[in-house]
């Protein structure tokens, strides 16, 4: 054993390499680790492993980590730890460690490398199966390691076999459907205290196993008596293990037990040089080899009694335990600077409950066990109730306590939840563990009730005279222990966490200083501020430029789906509410799509490129959803239709030049093209060379202005944009972003699906009955328009709203009440809400779009919008504010 030096709460200590921080501190005589979260009571280490409820630390060395259990940290040179009073401190520096992921398929996953797990691994390996053995401890062998006993060589050697992968220091965090599990492997923290970038600190394993063997062992639990939380009060198996390994700050001990485990631990303590003053056993007639061994060691045994209370020394550590009858009577003190508690074993049922397997109560063992075997999952070892044969436990969780005693008798140490808190829940009528948990916070700390869960169920049973299995069963949820988010993220950090989609023109937008707006995964320029300009000023300037001169927008993000096949027209007639099969080649048409429920779910312009070739555009955010939708109908309803759909969003770049001067600019860009309104009408498409590149130009407008959308192969997108900027320089060509686009379309009353709609609007609701074909026999959504609810009066309909104060921009989402209710005290029935709201350069004032109950029949009515600090009044108007007669689109 080599010696390592570490720091705890600013003091230097040394310990043995490989031992836990908790063990090393005990070796140095430290009993008082920290103070409790809420009641500031001194606390020491209770447990041996991840069941530890008290001894939390922050790690400040290496990668740093808040709130880790000192029982699970292997000490290394240079380790810097700080006691944590329940709440951790996140390091304020970036964690530069590497984190990684692995995917593995395997025949058998064995969770736990104790004797039972190793035996299962051997069995399946012998059958020629591929096996992964996952174990959360540094060494295989389970309890044999704690007992200092050799693991049988024929079992240990299984881990070296060709068809066996052994992952030490690896925790299965979750078990899911069909043999899927997620495990985290700690790879560097035990090597040294450095930040590792050359290999991953934590590797997350995604394992799919045909069969999973759960051999997860068990934790010891405590008993609930008064002052059961003082430093020096420990779980007996933990205390005996620390002490046997030489981490022994204790002179004398009292073992308080409900089972034979206490006897085994008393013997180990005694063998390690601790004077065991007594074993206090709640049972009247304990028997078995372990009891005989303790008697042979000359340890005094007191039966039929248990711990009632404890006293403290000046330093707050435990001095003695008062021992009495389970009803609290006849209590008398017995000295011990260690009070070792054996409250029975709690098998680790977590993973089994993750996949819905219910534990059962074994009264002889006083434990919830999981005896389960099916094709996917089986259990083994202590989890399956195999406790070794010498274990009779009393079903007992703590003595009768006075009110004063109950205030300091802890059920959940980390939450400082006492028997008094528990009793209040019972007195309030709680009976289910799930209710008691939520009423008291028991089992909600970092340990998720690893020790307190069964204790609480037992106490409920004791309080109402039922067996623990009549109370119900604990359900746990992943993760099994706390995990750094970084481990789950792996390499998917920063730019890799979510793909960013950019257009071929993106670099130009960035260079121009435009802030970006996220639209799904797309980065779109939001507005193009001139120096010193804020967003409001920039957007007003951009809007005015488009309405009076010419603007340019990058529309490349629009979803584009190439649709081919002889039945495409017939198919589009079913998909859109309006008619497409009659559309002439070279023409475009705007369409609305509805679900079968008749609600609008996407819109866009579709162009007939040739007889059997169409190009559909969708909303930027809806492209993938629409493609899925088309495929669903083609594959599952109308496979006889000859139609093929392909996403071409990324293949085509679209530059829109918009405004009264766009015709002049278009003629400069494509001198061979006749851009007159007679030769190139609204909704027409023309093919021409633009700036030397073959392009499809479409007379489509999302602003109401004369506009040309220039479509080129994506690789030429930037070239076209730059040509537009240089050819349009003397026309004061103005690039504009998504915000100006939104304002311009709202001025025209054009909806944005997802802004004016939320999946509950029909075309009629959007004042778009003109787009619903009366000629077609059927299309998706048609039948739903005549349903009672969609045809009823009073539906929310799209209207405009003008605030009386034109300088006030109503917040989007604001609720609208009838004008008569402007000064009515709440509660007031609202009649609708604002969907879009902007300041308008064209109107010289603010305006809004809204959905208002029966709104189309209410134009001219006064409304009010109660805000936190004022009531805004206004009037309902038509939803088209600019160019109602559509005169501007032809220039």
């Amino acid at each position: 054993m080599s010696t390592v030096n570490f720091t705890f709460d600013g003091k230097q200590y040394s310990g043995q390499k490989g031992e836990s921080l908790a063990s090393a501190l005990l070796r140095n005589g430290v009993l008082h680790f920290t103070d409790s979260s809420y009641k500031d009571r001194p606390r020491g280490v209770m447990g041996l492993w991840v069941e530890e409820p008290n001894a939390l630390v922050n790690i400040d060395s290496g990668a740093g980590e808040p709130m880790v259990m000192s029982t699970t940290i292997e000490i290394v040179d240079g380790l810097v730890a700080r006691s944590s009073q329940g709440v951790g401190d996140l390091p304020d520096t970036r964690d530069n460690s590497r984190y990684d992921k692995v995917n593995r398929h395997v025949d058998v996953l064995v969770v736990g490398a104790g004797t039972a797990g190793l035996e299962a691994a051997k069995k399946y390996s012998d059958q020629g199966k591929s096996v992964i053995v996952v174990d959360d401890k540094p060494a295989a062998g389970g309890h044999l390691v704690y007992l200092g006993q050799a693991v049988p060589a024929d079992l240990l050697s299984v881990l070296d076999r060709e068809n066996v992968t052994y992952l030490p220091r690896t925790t299965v965090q979750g078990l899911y459907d069909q043999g899927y599990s997620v495990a985290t492997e700690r790879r560097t923290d035990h090597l040294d205290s450095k930040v590792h970038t050359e290999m991953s600190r934590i590797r997350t394993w995604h394992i799919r196993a045909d069969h999973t063997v759960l051999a997860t062992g068990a934790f010891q639990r405590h008993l609930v008596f008064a002052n059961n939380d003082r430093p020096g009060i420990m779980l007996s198996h933990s205390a005996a293990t620390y002490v046997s390994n030489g981490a022994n700050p204790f002179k004398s001990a009292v073992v308080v037990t409900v089972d034979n485990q206490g006897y085994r631990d008393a013997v180990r303590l005694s063998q390690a040089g601790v004077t065991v003053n007594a074993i206090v056993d709640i049972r009247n007639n304990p028997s078995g080899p372990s009891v005989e061994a303790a008697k042979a060691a000359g340890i005094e045994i007191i039966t039929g009694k248990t711990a009632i209370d404890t006293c403290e020394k000046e330093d707050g550590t435990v001095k003695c335990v008062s021992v009495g009858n389970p009803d609290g009577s006849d209590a008398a003190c017995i000295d011990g600077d260690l009070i070792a508690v054996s409250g029975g074993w709690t098998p680790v049922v977590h993973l089994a409950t993750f996949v819905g397997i219910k534990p059962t109560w074994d009264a002889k063992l006083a434990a919830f066990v999981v005896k389960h075997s099916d094709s996917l999952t089986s259990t083994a070892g202590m989890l399956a109730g195999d406790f070794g044969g010498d274990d009779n436990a009393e079903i007992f969780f703590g003595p009768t306590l006075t009110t004063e005693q109950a205030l300091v008798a802890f059920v959940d140490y980390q939450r400082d939840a006492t028997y008094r808190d528990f009793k209040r829940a019972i007195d309030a009528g709680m009976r289910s563990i799930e209710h008691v948990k939520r009423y008291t916070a028991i089992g909600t700390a970092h340990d998720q009730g690893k020790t307190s869960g069964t204790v609480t169920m037992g106490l409920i049973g004791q309080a109402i005279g039922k067996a623990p299995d009549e109370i119900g069963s604990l359900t746990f949820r992943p993760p099994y222990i706390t995990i750094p988010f970084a481990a789950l993220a792996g390499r998917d950090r920063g730019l890799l966490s979510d793909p960013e989609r950019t257009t071929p023109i993106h670099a130009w937008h960035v260079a121009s200083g435009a802030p970006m707006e996220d639209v799904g995964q797309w980065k779109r320029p939001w507005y193009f501020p001139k120096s010193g300009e804020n967003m409001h000023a920039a957007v007003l300037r951009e809007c005015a430029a488009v309405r009076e001169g010419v603007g340019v927008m990058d529309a490349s993000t629009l979803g584009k789906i190439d649709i081919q096949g002889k039945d495409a027209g017939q198919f589009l007639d079913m998909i859109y509410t309006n008619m497409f099969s009659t559309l002439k080649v070279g023409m475009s048409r705007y369409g609305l799509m509805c679900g079968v429920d008749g609600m609008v779910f996407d819109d866009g312009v579709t162009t007939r490129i040739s007889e059997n070739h169409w190009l559909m555009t969708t909303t930027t955010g809806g492209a993938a959803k629409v493609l899925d939708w088309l495929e669903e109908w083609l594959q599952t309803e109308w496979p006889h239709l000859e139609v093929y759909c392909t996403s071409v969003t990324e293949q085509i770049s679209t530059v829109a030049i918009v405004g009264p001067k766009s015709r002049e600019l278009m003629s400069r860009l494509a001198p061979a093209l006749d851009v007159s309104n007679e030769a190139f009408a609204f909704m027409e498409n023309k093919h021409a060379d633009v700036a030397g590149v073959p392009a499809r130009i479409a007379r489509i407008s999302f602003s109401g202005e004369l506009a040309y959308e220039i479509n080129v192969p994506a690789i030429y997108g930037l070239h076209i944009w730059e040509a537009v900027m240089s050819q349009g320089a003397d026309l004061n060509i103005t690039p504009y972003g998504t915000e100006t686009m939104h304002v311009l379309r709202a001025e025209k009353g054009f909806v944005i699906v997802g802004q004016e709609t939320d999946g509950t609007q029909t075309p009629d609701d959007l004042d778009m009955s003109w787009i619903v074909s009366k000629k077609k026999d059927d299309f998706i959504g048609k039948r739903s328009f005549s349903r009672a609810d969609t045809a009823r009066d009073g539906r929310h309909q799209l209207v405009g709203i003008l605030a009386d104060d034109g300088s006030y921009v109503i917040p989007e989402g604001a609720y609208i009440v009838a004008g008569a209710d402007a000064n009515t005290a709440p509660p007031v029935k609202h009649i609708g809400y604002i969907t879009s709201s902007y300041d308008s350069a064209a109107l010289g004032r603010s305006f809004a779009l809204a959905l208002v109950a029966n709104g189309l029949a209410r134009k001219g009515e006064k409304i009010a919008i109660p805000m936190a600090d004022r009531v805004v009044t206004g009037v309902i108007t038509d939803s088209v504010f600019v160019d109602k007669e559509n005169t501007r689109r032809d220039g």
Partner: protein
Amino acid sequence: MLHIPCPYCGPRDETEFHYGSEAHVAYPENSANLTDEEWAKFVFIRSNPKGWMAERWVHSAGCRRWFNVWRNTINHEFGPSYKPFTQQPKSPA
């Protein structure tokens, strides 16, 4: 995470798929002639059984094809999967 047997690609992780609700609910050919109740039944009502159910999935991040598969809604066990418009295998129940 479910392990879903795509009839074209074999078993794959759930994250590659999108769910498509109950299988064999055909779009009515004569929707105009249906009563509101009959139409609402098609639009809104599904059998939602406890136990084996034939349902639709699409392998969105794979072959992009729709298929049907038996699944036990109690324990997420999958039965046989099959292509649309092919003979439905018997329920594993």
